[in-house]
């Protein structure tokens, strides 16, 4: 297993580094692949490890995107004027202006998203089970609608972001950043899931009342977990907004029915509540999606919905969960034959 683990890490790293060199035509697709990995990993903090299935995590992606855009533009221009005359007035950002804006914007995006998570956590964490899922879905939909009505950031028409300085379109730059983000998220979560924190949030998943009875400050843990996932989602939003160069509330920033659902589906497909599950699910889902999307001609959404149903109803443990059930000894899980009950595999492999 140890051997296996290092080949897995090495293989992923090698793919991440050499893929853009080997397949230069697919750089943007592979960048989105790493974005998907971030989505699935951050969703799993809540959905998999803590048992709070949010349908509205995309909120933080959009918030990060808009915060970064406002900071980037606002450092040098008046944002309201910028959006009002978008396209009509040529604005120019020098290289240093661009990068300082991007760095500050990304930092601001991460922290504002976390802050939003704390504030919304206060509202929605009293909700349990389905109410939580519907409440978060509602918050995300409302955020998109309200953003579309806010003229300061261009309303429904959206706003264009500063262009990447120099000759290139910056795809290689954004690739490196997104890949680094995905790796950083993974490593952070690997560390987090090995700490006491993961025991606490797993306890919340298994039985929140008992966890509370044991003296775990459930609300504090829930808020921290949500702001961690918001932190990384905010950064990913800031980067993705700059990558596409144009942001708009419904399709790019708060795509509840596309990215917002993909993140749930990817984590479930790979196996929720495991460290590698979301990564595997994201890679598999993205490859399937990129290959089939162009050939399905409008049926892709029907296929997506059907995939959700099949995944949830017939294959809820996901790929990693299924492998764990099949070969528990490879994951260091001991099956007590006498009891005939498998141990809860999820907490074991999280380490």
């Amino acid at each position, binding site marked *: 297993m140890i051997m296996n683990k290092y080949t897995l890490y090495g293989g992923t790293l090698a793919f991440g580094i050499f893929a853009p060199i080997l397949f230069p035509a697919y750089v943007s697709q592979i960048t989105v692949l790493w974005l998907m990995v971030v989505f699935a990993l951050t969703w799993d903090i809540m959905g998999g490890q803590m048992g709070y*299935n949010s349908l509205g995590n995309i909120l933080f992606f959009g918030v990060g995107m808009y915060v970064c855009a406002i900071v980037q533009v606002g450092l040098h221009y008046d944002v309201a004027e910028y959006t009002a005359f978008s396209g009509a007035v040529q604005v120019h950002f020098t290289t240093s202006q661009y990068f300082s804006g991007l760095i500050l914007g990304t930092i601001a995006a991460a922290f504002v998203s976390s802050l939003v998570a704390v504030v919304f956590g206060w509202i929605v964490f009293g909700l349990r089970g*389905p109410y939580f899922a519907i409440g978060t879905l509602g918050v995300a939909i409302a955020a998109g609608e309200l953003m579309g009505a806010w003229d300061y950031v261009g309303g429904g028409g959206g706003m264009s972001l500063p262009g990447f300085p120099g000759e290139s379109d910056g795809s290689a730059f954004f690739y490196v950043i997104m890949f680094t983000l995905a790796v950083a998220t993974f490593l952070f979560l690997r560390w987090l899931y090995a700490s006491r924190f993961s025991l606490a949030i797993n306890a919340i998943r298994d039985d929140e009342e008992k966890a509370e009875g044991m003296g775990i400050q459930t609300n504090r843990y829930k808020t921290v977990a949500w702001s961690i996932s918001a932190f990384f989602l905010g950064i990913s939003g800031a980067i993705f907004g700059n990558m596409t160069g144009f942001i708009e509330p419904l399709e790019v920033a708060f795509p509840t029915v596309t990215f917002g659902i993909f993140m749930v589906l990817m984590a479930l497909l790979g196996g929720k509540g495991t460290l590698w599950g979301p990564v595997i699910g994201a890679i598999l889902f993205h490859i399937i999606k990129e290959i089939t999307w162009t050939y399905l001609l409008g049926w892709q959404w029907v296929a997506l919905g059907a995939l959700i149903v099949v995944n949830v109803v017939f294959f809820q443990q996901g790929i990693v969960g299924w492998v764990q059930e099949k070969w528990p000894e490879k994951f260091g899980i001991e099956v007590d034959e006498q009891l005939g009950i498998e141990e809860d595999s999820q907490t074991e492999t999280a380490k």
Partner: protein
Amino acid sequence: MRLFERIIMLDNISLLGMAPFLNVQLLLDGLLIGSLFALSAYGLALVWGVMNVKNLAQGDFVIMGGYIAVVFARNGIHPIIALPIAAIVMFAFGWLLYITIIKRVIERDLFTSLLATFGIAIVLAQGLNLAFGPDVQVAESGFKTLVLFDGNVTVSQAKLVAFGLAAILAIGLVTFMKKSRMGQAIRATSQDARAAKVMGIDTEKVYAFTFSLNAAICGAAGVLIAMVWVIQPFFGITHSIRSFVIVTAAGFGNLPGVIIAGLGLGAMEQFSGFILGAEFQQATVVGVLIGVLIWRQVQQHKHRQVVQ
């Protein structure tokens, strides 16, 4: 620009103050539409209360019923005749959905049914989009518009007819639940599924019937909505959220509550649509949902303090 919009908003509010008939108009429109919301919300309360399935495809059932009416209207058949047919078709569709999917999610955790029905909702909405296109459609009913209060308030006859039909359906449903064997079995199962089983009720059949009945109610509500309002493949999610708002506010097994919440939501949407503008309609529904959830939480908080 912002200031300008704000002035319009204030203007709209003061307009309501100056013209009392406008209030009557909005209230009447809202209540008439709200009765249809209450109908599909009652279906959701039924499914939620009896089999603990949170059906996010509720709104898409409504839209499906609406498209059945549209198809009939195109072929020259009146929507009211389409109403029972849509109910029967949707009943069969609900049964089919039950034996293929829903049956497998009843015993599972809360999120499974929510996500599975969300998947169904996506399939239905996108399927309808492929079949009928994304345009807004109406089932032509040929009813006239009534004029009240010296022309200050207008009511379309179609809305009154729809309201009447919704009321008849609701009374029929209540009678069915109270008097018929199946209705009694449904109520028994919702009280205690295990005890019902012991008493010889085939709970499996009760679940299947409940889910199909819900689909049929939604189909009927959809026909009426297509008749008095507009339908579009992607309006389903808004209808689903409306049903959730109403059920969350009213609770299950509380028919008067569902009716009042439905009528209230309809009226609230009309007023906010007038004051804020029609593009805020979805945001209003979602805002009300969040408001209801927060209100429930405050209630629970109070309850907890009392327990402490």
